């Protein structure tokens, strides 16, 4: 409950209410992009510094493999449900499925903050896992789509670049490595910007996400009740699986929960960009509405506390 009254969540709600009320409030796009670049740098650095402090452990590799496997398998299950229960045709089902295999940076950040506040911070290497989980689902999604459909124009090389060298992935991993190199001491002079300022700037970013999510919901055309249901069922199921695997691998509460959060969250940055290129016929309004306007708020408000509770029961 207290979580829901944190300024970060309240700004998200303010943004959503303003958009539902059709206010002309809007965040200038360059600011929005600047904030998102800043968040990537800040969490990348933070993860790198944590890992440089604690050294690399076998847990890092276990978590990485778990993350990769999850992000490859989740889309397959999601695809089947989207086709059968969701009644989507192949291309749309594949595109949506890819989003659920990938991850949401801000959901991760929100979970991170709540877990840290609760005294159970996740391991620093989970940021590397986050970065690793951004792209594999894209490949799986495209594969699912192409089994059944032919496509004329193959933006092959571009697609691989868009995917693997997606700006957000590069920045996240790059900052992680910089964090590894500079360690705690090198971080001191930049910590006022990347650490002290973090929560305040996250508020502004979530204000924007509230605006964008609510506008997407308002203008979503093909978002059926069945699809909304799936956009809530997916995080519950995937989050439960992720948390359980984390617990089985022997991770601490924070880390196991975070694996659950990664599994539960849906991409709204790297995957949509790749889908516009690879599966242009898929309905962008639909996949963004599901991931950004339903699953994202669900995870922030209901999901994260739920996966935390699960982890506490299991670890």
């Amino acid at each position, binding site marked *: 409950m207290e979580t829901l009254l944190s300024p970060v969540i309240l700004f998200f709600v303010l943004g959503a209410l303003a958009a539902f009320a059709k206010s002309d409030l809007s965040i200038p*796009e*360059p600011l929005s992009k600047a904030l998102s670049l800043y968040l990537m740098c800040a969490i990348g650095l933070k993860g790198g510094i944590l890992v440089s402090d604690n050294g690399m452990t076998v847990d890092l590799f276990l978590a990485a493999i778990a993350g990769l496997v999850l992000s490859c398998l989740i889309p397959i299950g999601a695809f089947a449900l989207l086709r059968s229960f969701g009644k989507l045709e192949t291309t749309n089902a594949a595109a949506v499925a890819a989003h659920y295999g990938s991850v949401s940076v801000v959901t991760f950040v929100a979970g991170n903050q709540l877990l840290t506040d609760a005294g159970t911070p996740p391991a620093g290497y989970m940021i590397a896992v986050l970065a690793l989980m951004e792209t594999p689902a894209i490949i799986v999604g495209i594969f699912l789509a192409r089994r059944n459909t032919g496509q004329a124009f193959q933006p092959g090389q571009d697609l691989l670049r868009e995917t693997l060298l997606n700006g957000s992935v590069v920045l996240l991993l790059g900052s992680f490595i910089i964090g590894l190199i500079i360690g705690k001491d090198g971080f001191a002079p930049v910590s006022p910007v990347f650490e002290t300022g973090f929560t305040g700037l996250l508020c502004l970013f979530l204000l924007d996400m509230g605006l964008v999510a609510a506008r997407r919901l308002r203008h979503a055309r093909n978002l059926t009740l069945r699809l909304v249901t799936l956009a809530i069922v997916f995080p519950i199921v995937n989050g439960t699986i992720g948390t359980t695997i984390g617990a089985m691998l022997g991770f601490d509460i924070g880390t196991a929960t975070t694996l659950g959060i990664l599994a539960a969250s849906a991409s709204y940055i790297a995957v949509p960009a790749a889908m*516009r290129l690879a599966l242009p016929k898929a309905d962008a309004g639909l996949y963004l509405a599901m991931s*950004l306007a339903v699953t994202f708020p669900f995870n922030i408000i209901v999901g994260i506390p739920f996966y935390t509770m699960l982890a506490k029961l299991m670890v």
Partner: protein
Amino acid sequence: MIKTTTRKKIEILMDVPLLRSLRDLAIKNGVRGYTVLPTLAGGGDQGRWRDDQVTGGAGSKVVFATIVKEDTADRFLTALEPLLDEYSLIVTITTVEVIRGDNF
């Protein structure tokens, strides 16, 4: 009166992620110069959009504009045609006059 030459201006509205491929296609088909222009928002059969960077610009659109000779226009547009439906591109061709026509 200044001497002008007739050329075709092709303008293509497209999703940002497609820009690189399309530019390469244009150059491969004889386009020598082009300019990319920003847009803010729009609406059509697939609903409304507005430039939003929360999603990394996946939903943003730009206009790719190029001034070409008639035969280059034909060649480029023919190469482009299969993509039109796939990527729901909006293409307009306008007749314009240019000065120093041999630059285009």
